[in-house]
């Protein structure tokens, strides 16, 4: 599916390599017959926290690796902070910090030693390195663990160290590939909090398939599907552009008034209605995406009554990012 097929807004900025934090033009990557990325043209404005959404296998990691110069494009080029990164030039790698999906470190080093090593590779002097390391260890809340072997770090600590190493040398752009996907809720909270603290100081290009994370920290969103860009928009604009076409129903809790079987029957009955796009159930709560809002408003409540369900809450709402994402990527 491409943007025109989806009928959704596809806003590609007029900005070019010189004025955008990240600029891709016709970026493509084939692995034999498999087209991992198909002509990605994208502009990421400076200062944004840019969410790059897509299902597993959509081409997010391929895009990240191409931007970081770790893979060679089949076609197209990419620039980060005005310098082409797809040409494998050494200088271009000072323009961004990169965190892969599963960051790996030299386990025998301490966090401080690793950051110092990265600073030395970047050519920073001792004083600059020391001050940067202290600041980044504080930002990543790793001061106490600074001298411990990295081999003993938890997943959350590794991700925070990963972001810290990506920030060494004050690059204008951060490329974060699924930074929260392998973390528990506490670890996710810590990492998202750290990313939020970067707002306005650095451009963050964040890929994820976890929509709540993107919704929480990003101000601009792009959706990639099967290697193709299907949407780029400001998060708030995107949500505003989508009409109020979702209804949330909250019933009496199961075993506290509603029974599971009746709710299941009601959910099944809803899904058969032609004006319903999708139904998502979570315990005694239903979220219904509606294709024909006026028919929905006419027929929904009578259907609730027909199933003899006790309704606690009934509210028409805007679709969430997840709703839009599912709509565009199916």
């Amino acid at each position, binding site marked *: 599916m491409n943007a025109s097929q989806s009928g959704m807004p596809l806003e590609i900025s007029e900005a070019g390599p010189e004025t955008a934090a990240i600029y891709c033009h016709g970026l493509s990557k084939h692995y034999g017959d498999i087209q991992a990325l198909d002509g990605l043209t994208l502009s990421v404005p400076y200062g944004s926290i840019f969410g790059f959404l897509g299902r597993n296998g959509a081409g997010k990691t391929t895009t990240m*690796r191409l931007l*970081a*110069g*770790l*893979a*060679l494009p089949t076609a197209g080029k990419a620039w980060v902070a*005005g*310098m082409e990164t797809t040409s*494998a*030039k*050494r*200088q271009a*790698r*000072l323009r*961004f910090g*990169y965190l*892969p999906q*599963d*960051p*790996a*470190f*030299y386990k*025998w080093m301490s966090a401080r030693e690793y950051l110092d*090593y*990265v600073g*030395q*590779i*970047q*050519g920073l002097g001792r004083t600059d390195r020391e001050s940067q390391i202290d600041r980044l260890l504080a930002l990543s809340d790793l001061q106490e663990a600074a001298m411990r072997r990295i081999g003993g770090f938890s997943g959350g600590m590794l991700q925070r160290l990963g972001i810290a*190493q990506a920030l060494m040398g004050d690059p204008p752009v951060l490329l974060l590939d699924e930074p929260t996907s392998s973390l528990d809720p506490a670890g996710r909270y810590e990492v998202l909090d750290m990313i939020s603290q970067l707002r306005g100081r650095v451009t963050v290009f964040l890929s994820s398939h976890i929509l709540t994370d993107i919704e929480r920290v990003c101000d601009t969103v792009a959706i990639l599907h099967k290697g193709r860009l299907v949407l780029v928009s400001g998060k708030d604009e995107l949500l505003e552009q989508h009409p109020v076409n979702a209804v949330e129903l909250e019933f009496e809790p199961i075993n506290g008034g509603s029974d599971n079987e009746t709710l299941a029957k009601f959910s099944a009955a809803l899904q058969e209605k032609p004006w319903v796009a999708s139904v998502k159930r979570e315990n005694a709560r239903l979220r219904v995406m509606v294709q024909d809002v006026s028919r929905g408003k006419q027929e929904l409540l009578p259907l609730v009554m027909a199933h003899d369900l006790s309704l606690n809450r009934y509210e028409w709402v805007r679709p969430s990012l997840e709703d839009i994402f599912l709509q565009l990527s199916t």
Partner: protein
Amino acid sequence: MLILAYSLSIFLMIALPLALAVALRRVSRPVWLLFSVGSLTFILSQAVHLPVNDWLADIGFLPKGSVGELPLWRTAITLGLTAGLCEELARTAGYALIQWLKPLWMRMQDSLMLGLGHGGIESMIFGGVLTAAGFSSLLSMREVDLNTLSLNPEQLAALKLQLELFTASPLNAILPLIERLLALSIQLVFSLLIWRAFARGRLSRDWYYIPLAILYHAAVDAGAVWTAQNSSSNYALRMLILALSLLPGWAWGFWLVRREWEPRATLQGKLERQIEDSSIWAELSVFWVALIKELRQLWRTRRLLVMGAVFLVFGMGSPLIAKFTPLALSSIEGIEMFAELIPEPTAGDAMGQYIKNLSQFGFILAVLMAMGVVVGEKERGVAAMIISKPMPRWAFVSSKLAAQAVMYLVGFLLAGAGAYYYTLFLFEPLAFGDYALLNGLMFLWLIVFVALSVLGSTLAGSTVGAGGIGLGLSVALLLAGALPGFGALLPGGLMGWASQLGQRAAGVAASLPGSASVSGEVMANGGAAASALVIILMSLVLAIGIFEQQEL
């Protein structure tokens, strides 16, 4: 002075093509892999060229013994044509392969890199290795009465002439270097000629550049053969005539390079160029940072400690084994009667044991310790983290080989000190110079296998695969050392030289059974040392070239 001059000349014949490649890369960034492709086209051309010349000699078209057997004009033209056909057709095949697989690598600058690879390996082998082999042989023969050698009068005269030229002045060491530089320059022109046939994507129209390259190559080589026979004693005259024959090629090559060079027209290009031009020292400093990190890793992961301990044990143990093995055997019940048959152990036995121990265990350790250095970091994802920083890929690979070399250097220092002390304690003092050189040669020999293992580690997708490739390449090289003719010029020849040095260091006459010694003198094998250096450097260049193309 003579040794220094020739050593420098040999080193430059090996290192200058690489230095030129580094300079070319800084100007226009052709990939390192093209250097290796160029080298491969030369090696493949020789794999056909040499047997073809042998066959022509067998059927009487080329002289088998003395050049005077056949008309010189015919010999010169035949040798020129076989060289031109074999080399230029191999080069053509190389270009066809690149155009098919990597059409973006068909810039004019890329053809210069291919030419440097092709001419570079020629300079290393025909210049560096063969000059080193000849130099070391002549060095050994300076004190020998040549009339005692079993040579025919023509061979004897040629040898005397070579010796005269060799000993006349250290400045003569520059002559083979000049010859190789001239040859390298014309290889660039040949490469440009073949490139010109492919460059416009209209081979059907521009094909004539290929026969032109063959004919020009044949003419240059034939001229070189002719002048070599007619002015063999006047090296300078030969160089002058060769240079004159190259003039048209140089003129055309210069004109083409000026016309085709892709300029960096944009402002951004100019700015990037400024950054790149000033960054050679920055890149070297990153290499140094990476090397220090590798050494710290070897220390912190205890590998350096273990390696040092192993080498120290084998070093100290060698004289002990030599001394006490006969005693141990004689104390075994039932075989006491054989004790008298075992000769009294000497320092020479200690040296033999030392070389045997370190070569066997060193070889195994070299493969095992180096096999995971690159692929291990690729597998774990550390390489991607580091390469996303401004770490040049060449520095990433080179620092690992250099750190391994430092580790074995420490190993040899410990082993050498241990063996020296116990030999002194149990037997007698060793001649220090010979003993130090022996250790240096064994170190060089071992680094060849480390380099091959690092190459395997870059090629493979897993540590096990890397070990297999490293071991396979190493065994193949060891087996190649048994080949008649050029086998002695391979790194295996270093061990024969080291063995002779070991015996002489121990005060035993250096005449090992089957070894190439002359009148009890140690027969230096400079060719083996130069070939070891060439293999180490070319393995590194290939590993870097491959790593540059790998996606992480």
